[in-house]
């Protein structure tokens, strides 16, 4: 019995675990380093995108005269100009703007959940987690629409020299430009979408834990903070994907 008591004594010495130089818990610190490693992965994707883009000719005519060709890298405004319910209407980047807003909004509701956790306000944590789950799912739905539209393509498609027409995109050929353009679209937005999906799953898990009072009994809502860090990182990655894939 006395042995157990000595074993449970916290280590307080500087060199045996008593020192906490970063003033954050182990879990949060490891989440930061995981996110750092995840940033490496996304940086690799963006490097690949930049190199592939440089290897292809840029379109040099006026934007009005632009047409899809495997000769040059497409202008993103001309590829991503569709909006659900507005078939055939040219609304460049409108849908991706909506997606960006949804994701930024979900980041805000996530911070609000973390803030409520600091105050031990169980009801507020539940409320804001639900909003975050809702916006995250909305983003995933938007991405599903974006993908299916990208894959199905437009009615005009791209005319080839032999008279045949390509509609939509797959990994081998696409109507928008060089094959690598569609490949990188699938890989980069797909990898980001997988992150969003994992985030929504984590959010649902911590929502159930919150409802069951797990964190309340534990005395802190740190798990919400850790998932929050992950969720903001996903938002951050989207900010970069948005710039380098849709704007530049």
């Amino acid at each position, binding site marked *: 019995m006395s042995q157990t008591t000595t074993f449970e004594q916290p280590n307080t010495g500087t060199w045996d675990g008593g020192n906490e*130089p*970063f*003033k*954050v818990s182990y879990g949060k*610190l490891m989440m*930061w380093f995981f996110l*750092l490693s995840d*940033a*490496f992965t996304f*940086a690799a994707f*963006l*490097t690949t995108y*930049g*190199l592939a883009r*440089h*290897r292809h000719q840029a379109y040099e005519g006026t*934007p009005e005269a632009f047409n899809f060709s495997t000769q040059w890298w497409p*202008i993103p*405004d001309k590829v991503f100009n569709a909006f659900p319910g507005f078939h055939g209407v040219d609304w*460049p*980047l409108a849908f991706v*703007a909506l997606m*960006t*807003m949804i994701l*930024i*909004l979900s*980041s*805000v509701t*996530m*911070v*609000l959940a973390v*803030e*409520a956790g600091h*105050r*031990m*306000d*169980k*009801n*507020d944590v539940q409320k804001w987690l639900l909003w975050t789950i809702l916006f995250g799912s909305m983003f995933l739905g938007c991405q599903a629409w974006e993908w299916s539209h990208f894959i199905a393509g437009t009615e005009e498609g791209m005319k080839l020299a032999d008279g045949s027409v390509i509609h939509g995109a797959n990994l081998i050929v696409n109507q928008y430009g060089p094959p690598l353009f569609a490949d990188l679209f699938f890989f980069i937005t797909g990898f980001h979408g997988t992150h969003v999906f994992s985030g929504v799953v984590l959010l649902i898990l911590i929502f159930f834990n919150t409802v069951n*009072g797990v964190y*309340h009994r534990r005395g802190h809502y740190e798990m919400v903070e850790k998932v*929050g*860090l992950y969720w*903001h*990182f996903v*938002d*951050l990655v989207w*900010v*970069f994907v948005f*710039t380098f894939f849709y*704007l*530049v």
Partner: protein
Amino acid sequence: MASHSHHTDEFAHTGEIPKAQTKVIWKTFFILVAITAVEFAFAFMMDAGTLRNAIFIGLTLFKAFYIVGEFMHLKHETKGLIWAVLVPTVLLVWLLVALLVEGTFYGESVFNYFN
């Protein structure tokens, strides 16, 4: 019986919940929305080019600063943690730029070897 006493304990907690402090959060949100709106304005009102791309990247870094600093709370962590995250990220950006510049040069020399 046990669950009953647990519930009263929860209600005791509910009574002491302080008011939410959300001013900074919403301010950050409006900054992010405003920067995104400015990006769109540039996308439509300015012709594509190196300058426009530089503006886009600059605004993106601004957004990243607010997301990481405020939402991820890094601005308010210890200096050690800030550097532990920031230094690898800066080196990563350096690596990215170096790979792009050198890779483009290398790609061009390989593909145009016989021209």
